[in-house]
Each structure stands twice: as structure tokens, then as C-alpha cells.
């Protein structure tokens, strides 16, 4: 048993899975920067190898299911602790059970993955609503977020469809990257807010109008801050215009 260390990429992770099957069983899978060497396990640094990753990728799609491949990817992009090992266990079980693995809700290897996936999809869904765009000079739409999970690319389809003709930037400040899109095309790139244009003329006025609307629409006889925070966790408030 050995700890595998990789570069944090999905391909790197899949390469570790390859080694788990073809070399030595993994005791743990960690990224280089997170690893605390212990006396119990030895470790091996794994270089990401496209061909080995692709082999595992295809095997998951064929022997488990394309749905599970997506699920694995979503969970990989989560910040759930020890996600690599949860996924390794899931994949191992998946190679035995095939596509029916997703029906085994009660299985101890399945349910944590299911839960982690839910966290990611729930955050994506939440952010679709909670993202606030500002109109910058030059009519560029710009939004900032600091999501728990690495969800930028899951926002792409929704917003490229919505803003078909308007350029926009969604900036993940926490991870220093951004989704940049125009005319239905998008890519993800490293990003800082340096050199960003100023907000447009009308922007302040619309923010004020939205704030006013937000205050007005609450029914004071029904005030229920607990409920509000429950649905809209305070950690997201920082980037909301209305609060």
C-alpha cells in the first residue's frame, strides 16, 4: 500500500487510479501541496499521463456509465474532504456493479459520493440565482463569486445561453480564475480584477433600485431571518448587491 501524490488535475487523479489497478494498491491519494508524509505509508509522486488517464476515463464511461463519469467529475471538483479516496472506492465498486451502482443508495461507498455530488449541484443551482452581474463600461457584464466548490464551468451553459449577445465575465475570486464568454463561446482562464473597466453610468442607479425593491418586498409581519439565512447562507452575502 502506497500514498499516491498528484498535481490536483482530474487527469492526474485518473492517472493515480490507473496505478492503483496496474501497480500498487493506493492507501491514499493526495495532491502534492496537501500531503503530510507519515511514517506508516510510503508515497509515490505520480506524473500526469494523458494516455493512462484516458484509459481510465473510457473504462468508467463504458463499464460503469457516462452518468457516473459525470458524477465522478462533479465530486472531483468539490472540496469534500478526502474526495479522492471516496471516488476511488466508488470507482472500485462501480467496476464490480456496473451502472446499477447509482441505485445502491444505502451503500457506504455510494452514499458519501451521492452526498458530495448533491453539495456541488446544490451550490451550482444556488449560484445561478445568487450571482450578481454589474454592467461595466463598454457593456461588459461582470460577476464575482467565491464558491465552496470549483463550479465555474458548470455555470457556463446557463449563462452563455442567457446572454447570447453580451460578453460576460464570471470571476472566481477564491481560485483566481474566471469564465469568460462572448457570443456563445466560453473559456476558463486565470484572472485578477486588475485593469477591469469601471462600472457604467447607470449601474449605481440600478443597484439602488434593486436594493429598494429588496427592502420593500419583505412582509414585516412575517420577518424570519432564520429562514432567510437557511436558504441564502451568509457566506454568499458578501457579493450580493441587495444586502
Amino acid at each position: 500500500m502506497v500514498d499516491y501524490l498528484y498535481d490536483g488535475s482530474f487527469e492526474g487523479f485518473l492517472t493515480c487510479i490507473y496505478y492503483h489497478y496496474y501497480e500498487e494498491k493506493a492507501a491514499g491519494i493526495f495532491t502534492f501541496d496537501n500531503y503530510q508524509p507519515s511514517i506508516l505509508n510510503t508515497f509515490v509522486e505520480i506524473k500526469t499521463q494523458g494516455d493512462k488517464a484516458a484509459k481510465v476515463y473510457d473504462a468508467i464511461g463504458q463499464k460503469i456509465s457516462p452518468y457516473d463519469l459525470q458524477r465522478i467529475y462533479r465530486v472531483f471538483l468539490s472540496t469534500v474532504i478526502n474526495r479522492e479516496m471516496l471516488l476511488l472506492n466508488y470507482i472500485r465498486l462501480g467496476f464490480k456493479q456496473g451502472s446499477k451502482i447509482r441505485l445502491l443508495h444505502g451503500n457506504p461507498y455510494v452514499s458519501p459520493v451521492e452526498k458530495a455530488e448533491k453539495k456541488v449541484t446544490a451550490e451550482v443551482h444556488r449560484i445561478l440565482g445568487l450571482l450578481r452581474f454589474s454592467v461595466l463600461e463598454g457593456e461588459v457584464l461582470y460577476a464575482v463569486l467565491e464558491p465552496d466548490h470549483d463550479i465555474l464551468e458548470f455555470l457556463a451553459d446557463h449563462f452563455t445561453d442567457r446572454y447570447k449577445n453580451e460578453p460576460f465575465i464570471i470571476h472566481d475570486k477564491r481560485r483566481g480564475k474566471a469564465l469568460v464568454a462572448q457570443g456563445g463561446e466560453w473559456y476558463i482562464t486565470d484572472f485578477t480584477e486588475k485593469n477591469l473597466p469601471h462600472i457604467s453610468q447607470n449601474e449605481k442607479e440600478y443597484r439602488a433600485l434593486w436594493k429598494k425593491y429588496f427592502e420593500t418586498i419583505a412582509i414585516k409581519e412575517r420577518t424570519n431571518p432564520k429562514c432567510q439565512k437557511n436558504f441564502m447562507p451568509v457566506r454568499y452575502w458578501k457579493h450580493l448587491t441587495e444586502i
Partner: protein
Amino acid sequence: MDSSLMDKLKILADSAKYDVSCSTSGVERKNVGRMGNASCAGICHSWSADGRCISLLKVLFTNKCVYDCQYCVNRRSVDVERASFEPAELAELTMEFYRRNYIEGLFLSSAVEVSPDYTAERILHCLSILRYEYGFAGYIHAKIIPGVSQELTHAIGMVADRLSVNIELPTEESLQRLAPQKKARAIFAPMKQITNTLIEQKSLKGPGTMFKGQNLNNPLNYLNPEGRELIQPEGANADIGDGSLYQMGSPAGNALIREARYKYKEKFAPAGQTTQMIIGAGTETDSQIVKTSESLYRSFKMKRVYFSAYIPVTDSPLLPSVFTAPPLIREHRLYQADWLLRFYGFTADEMFTKEEPNLDLDLDPKITWALRNINLFPIEINKASMEELLRIPGVGTVSALRIVRQRKVAAVKYDDLKKMGVVLKRAKFFLTCSGKYYGEKDLMPEYIKGKILEPCRIKSRLLPINDETQISMFSPGAFSLGAPQQSKSKRSLESNGGLLI
């Protein structure tokens, strides 16, 4: 920007805030205009201080009203600030909010300025600017004011995703007393027109799973061709009037409003129709309210009937005093009952007995029903049909489906149930797992009720998120219900192939 826009927004959002039917579900649309899409799952953009979700810009077009409904803050006889939007102004505001991702679209209601038609024309103008000039493909929910002409109703339906005509009060008697200018017939006429138009374009979908597997878009479902009548449940206001009821025009009818003109949306109200009732302003019982909703579902195939706890706004001898707390728990229970109608195969009749025409405020209606029918339990998880599973308190539609699916590959164990989303705290009293009972003691209604009530407040999982948020800190019993009204005529629900027409 017009400096008065801020004031208008404040006045017209303030007077729209009591309207509860604010959800965006029911239409999925990729961007087919220049801007915007609509998501079936419903996206909430914010939650206001009262814990309700904000997904649409919800405003009145105007609060200048010629009517005098007793329960309303905007009725003619009160002195409040008045304002009206200009069509172009509201269209621009909606667009700019939408671009910034503040909202999914517009929820536009209105008081009656000058006349229903005058107001509807201005609303139509505003929505047309949004759809044509801006190419807006987001969500629009528009209110139809009773008394509006058929042509305008149709034209608004061609630019809106969802239409609603508010029934406001569940019985005709309350309507006469509290909203004398509103006539039941004027409310039902546009409802009927909407249903018929949806059938005509073959896009009528009933609520939830209520009409599962049935073809609703059958001409037999047209309302009032050849004098088919609604059967009126007792005390419920399901009369659709007589004589001059809406008749479907010939397909060659009015070319102007039938032509599918718009690129972004060629359908009439693709997200269907809804309505809303005020709870606790009149004296009707829960049984009357739920029966009226059921009847609205069965006849008009409404997507939703919304309930809004009456918040006292005026001192009127006809209404609960201004010190009455809004009946929020009651509203919550009604939503649960409504959920049972739409997704769990219950009928209104099953939920009430003659002795108890109101829902139990302490317990959710499914438990109340289960305790009354304790002889049907416990239900064996590994054998029960989907319908039976759905009758177990604590088992929802999602968990029932998971149980059925897992059973195909492996027997469901007791420990699995929790992971599947079953609320065991309640469910354990009503089920067995491979023959074993886990409910501590025997199946004794009183014992179970005590056990379930123990944790003091039950957080029901039956409700959809938006509705659940409406429950608040008012404790049960903090307000009183009006005296149950004695129903005059008693007619039973009759069904004709499952439909009440």
C-alpha cells in the same frame, strides 16, 4: 433616469408583496429571443427578510383602483400613495434587472385603473415592448383582471408564460361580502377561456401528478361546450355562471390574435394558469377551501392554487380585527393538504370528516389521515405499491421512488430508509421492513400522536421550498379561526372519468 422611478417602484412593489403566487416553474426555454431563458427547475435569486424567495420582479402595474375590496390595501376608499408605471418604463426596468441576474422575469399584477380593459391594454403594451423590442425571453407571469375582454386576455396570453386570475375567496358568499364588485362569473370566464385555449393548442397540463397518464388535451375537456357544468362541491364556489359563458371561437376566428407572431414564443401561456385565495378573511372552513381548490384543479386543470394568509390591513366590521395574527400555520397546513391533492393521490373528501372540517394545526394532514385510518398500517416497504408508499407519513415522492427502484436490485433495509430521505421519526410507526416493525410500541393513534408531537414543532418535509418558507414564529393557537360556516346545500363530488365536469 426618471427620479420618480424609485418612488413608483417602492409603492408598486409594496402593494404587490402580499401576492404569493410567485414561482417560475413550468416552462423550460432556451434562448430564442435576444436575451434570456427560462429554467424549469425554478431559480431563486434572493430571499427577503421574511424568508420568502425572490425570483421575479413582482409589482403592480398600478395601484390606482376603482374597486373597493374590503381586504385590500389599495381599495378606492383608503388614502394611500398612488402610482402607475409607464409601459416603456417598466419594460426597461425589468430588462435591466434581468441583465444583472437579479430576477428570472416579471410578475405583473395590477389594480383596476379606469377599467379592466384600459389596464390590460397598458399591461399588454408593456409586455409587448419587453418581448419585441428587447427580445426578452425570460419568464412573465401576468394577472388577468376579471372583466377583461377575451381578445385582450388572449393577446396577453401570447406574450406571457403564465396567467392567473385570482379567485380571492373560496366561497361565493365571502366574495359578495368582501369584494362586492367582483362577480364569480367574471372570475371564471377568463379561467375557462385560458383552459380552453390551452386544450386547443394541446398544451394543457394538470397540476402535479393528479392527472397522470390522462390526455387532458382532449376536446371533451373543453369547458362548457354543450352545457357541461361544473359539479359544485358543498359550500365551494365552483359555479362557472350560466348562459353567456365563454365559447371557443372557430379556428378561423380572430386572425390577429391567433397568429403565432413571435419568434421567442409561439404558445399561449405555456406555463399554464394558477390562482390565489386569501385565507382567513372570510369564515370558511379548511374543508371548503380544499374542496374549492380540488374543484379548480379538476375543472380548470390549474397548475397551482396558492393560499395567502390574510394580513389585517384595515379595521372593518366584516373582517378579523387588525390585531389578529395572520393564520400562517393554517396556511402552511393548507399547502400541505394541497400537496397531498396534487402529488399523493388524495382527495379533499379523504382529508376531512364532518366533525372536523378544519385541518389539525399541530399535525400535518397526512399524519392526521394516517391516524384516522390506522387499520391500513403498517405498510410493508418491500411489497407496497407506489401509491401505498406515498400514503406513509414521512415518505415523500422522492424517497418512494428510490424505494421502488432499489427494490428491483436489492431488498430495502431499515437502515437504508434514512439515506433515501425517509423521515423515520414519523414513518417508523407506519411501516414494516421485511416484516419487522420498528415503531417501539403498538399501532395506537394516541400514542403515536404523542410521540410525534414530542419534539414540539414538526418540521414538515412535505412542502416545496417556497411554501415552507412561509411558516414563521407564530405558535399554533395564537390566532383564532372564524366560526365554521354552515353549508346550505349539500352536494357530493361526482366524477366523470376523473373530471368534475
